[in-house]
């Protein structure tokens, strides 16, 4: 059983600067995904459309685009679930490189501000192989991020202010901060509560709505704001605490 679909694809040619929509008709069976459709159009009709893909099983985060207005992964979006005609456009908030390929380099570099790694003291590293299931639970949700950048594409703040670290980097920062094996914590909070950090977010929540892996970056940002407040109070108190302990001596 096949059904006819009209696929509209937003094209952009960087060499000529031209923008247009390509229209292709295809006959799809039940299990055809949007990614399958593009592959078929390119391979049979030699349309030469540029887009990213790799795993075709919604885990590598390559194939994010806007389909019928929604930020999705193309490889797990089925034509049968979409309204005809199907319109495919590049992610928003990024410069378009060609057709559906956008430039995510800068957003990926933002991960740097998240200090996405653990450090540990010698004593801590001795008990390295213990993390209780409860401690693991704390990082379970945010560690699912596949860096697909759908959230960044959906974020109205990032759209206005490219200096904002963005929801993906924030979710990853939260994940490492909550890791029982981490010691960078304080330094990371300095970075997160800095000028381009979490305060810029005003909790629109679009990021969590589009996230295909249920990471809830918006939730992570809110929790980090709380952590940030505590961190600021603590940093403000620190010199006092120190002088207190000195006076004790």
């Amino acid at each position, binding site marked *: 059983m096949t059904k006819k679909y009209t696929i509209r694809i937003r094209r952009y040619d960087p060499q000529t600067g031209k923008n247009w929509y390509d229209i292709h008709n295809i006959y799809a069976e039940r299990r055809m995904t949007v990614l399958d459709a593009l592959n078929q159009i390119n391979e049979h009709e030699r349309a030469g459309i540029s887009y990213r893909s790799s795993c075709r099983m919604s885990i590598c985060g390559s194939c994010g685009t806007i389909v019928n207005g929604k930020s999705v992964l193309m490889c797990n979006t089925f034509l049968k679930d979409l309204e005809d005609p199907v319109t495919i456009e590049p992610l928003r908030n990024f410069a378009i490189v060609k057709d559906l390929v956008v430039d995510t380099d800068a957003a990926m570099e933002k991960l740097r501000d998240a200090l*996405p790694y653990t450090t540990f003291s010698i004593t801590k590293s001795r008990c390295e192989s213990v993390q209780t299931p409860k401690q*693991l639970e704390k990082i379970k949700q945010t560690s699912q991020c596949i860096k697909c950048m759908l959230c960044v594409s959906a974020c109205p703040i990032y759209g206005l202010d490219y200096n904002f670290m963005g929801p993906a980097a924030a979710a990853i920062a939260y994940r490492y901060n909550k890791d029982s094996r981490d010691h960078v914590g304080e330094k990371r909070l300095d970075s997160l509560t800095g000028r381009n950090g979490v305060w810029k977010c005003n909790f629109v929540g679009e990021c969590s709505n589009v996230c295909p892996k249920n990471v809830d970056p918006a939730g992570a940002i809110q929790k980090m704001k709380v952590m940030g407040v505590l961190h600021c109070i603590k940093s403000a108190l620190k010199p006092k605490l120190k002088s207190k302990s000195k006076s004790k001596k």
Partner: protein
Amino acid sequence: MNPIKEHDILIIGGGGAGLRAALSAAQLDPKLSIAILSKVYPTRSHTVSAEGGCAAAVGKDDNIKNHAEDTIIGSDYLADQDAVEFFVKHCKEEILLLEKWGCPWSRSADGAIAVRAFGGMSKKRTVFAADRTGFFMLHNLFERTYLHPNIHRYNEWYVTKLFTDDKGVTGVMAIHQKEGEMQAFRAKAVIIATGGAGKMYKNSTNSVIKTGDGMYLAYDAGAALKDMEFVQFHPTALPKTGILITEAARGEGGYLINNKKERFLKDYVPEKMELGPRDMITRAIISEYRKGNGFNGPYGKYVELDIRHLGEKVINEKLPQIRELAIEFMHTDPVKMPIPVTPAQHYTMGGISTDIKGQTTVPGLFAAGETACVSINGANRLGSNSLAECLVFGAQAGKYAATHAQKNKVRSPSAGQIKTETGRIEKILTNEGNENPFKIRDEMQETMDHHAGIIKNEKSLSSGIEKIKHLQRQFTKIKINQNNTVFNGELITTLELAGMLKLAEITLLAASRRRESRGAHYRTDYPKRNDKKFLNHLLISKSGGIHMTPSIKTEPVTITKWQPRERKY
């Protein structure tokens, strides 16, 4: 043409092996300039799809001797035993290293790293992070690279050529896809970590990017390939898409069922049942199909994988991705229904021949991960050994490439070499032919499915070679329609295809030369293992031009403690 870029070490590939190599080299010497070139963002590498887990003898009742023995028996005695001994000795420290780096390994109730059962492993020894192990490992390694200012990333750069001179490797040529420009690099050492070549086959669990580029680049640069006839087929993939349903589903207690409602493995691997090794289970399924015991579906025959009895809680906790994939891609909830599965190509045991330092037969050129063949996998890899291999031998390659870079001066590829390579790419782009690269690719994949599949014989292999040679001739008349060089998918597909057509020929040639059955290599005309003649590796190298028939040499298998016996489960 831009001026040549220079780094001390170039790593081609940002999957598990490439990233581990980069971190290893960066840690060893923070002064070395290390570059990772990857045709996709490192986090899109195929390692991300690995589900089940990563082997290491960490359990209380386990030890490295058991791990070595299982690996060697699993390999049908073709693994080099010194390499296996080195490998098993270092798996645990790699797991603990990632533990410190924050990899979210799954836990047992007391907080210790948990292990699960896997096929061909006599103990529970597969460390896992739910059923997204590769994903968690890859992201953890990737994120760690941000800590090292001496690791530079060239994301979405496609390497087209390795340059060598009479002293060894000198650099590479790459296409910067975003700019659509070509760029030459020079370096003191190059590590290839480009993964397997599964996309020679249509019916495969591999992602579209697994096209064996590095194997071809190394072969073209004069390095030897080894064990190329050994291709693993996984017993449980989803029909049509080839999406993998991890062995962990059976490790956690799942059953394989035929259309008679029987756990048919009782007739094939009665002692191990669902935990038998992949090669035997795959052949068992094919044999059930031939007896008429398979189910018939819209995408061909299948058997059922039933995990319902594990219960929703265990499934959600230990196999969440399997549930998600089955629902998303098969519209089947495994909590309520068995999952239809069928065998598909999965892993290339063969690859660029290296020693345990990751050194290839070309000075300064190293390789690690699925693209390399050390060989610890021999004729059949045990599930979960390959992620561990990426870590252990990625670290080795990084370390020895760094040592090589410390001791040697950089040499440049010659202007002539660079010009020839640019000319070759331009020629492909402007070739005035009429052949469709996608069509040739499809025909190659179908040829490999039929002629170099689970069950082979001389007739199918030699006619396969003829078909591939025909496709190679067609390839010279290829036509690329897309003229813009920015993210030119047709060009990349064509370059990948050029390599795969050669690798396909090599795979068929080696399979035809090996007149016995061993591990994943099964021939109906030689159904028995023949240690007298074939307890050796086949080493394949370029002989004359790239279009000439390669030369084949044999190399004895290294045996340390385990004398070959009959392999029975």
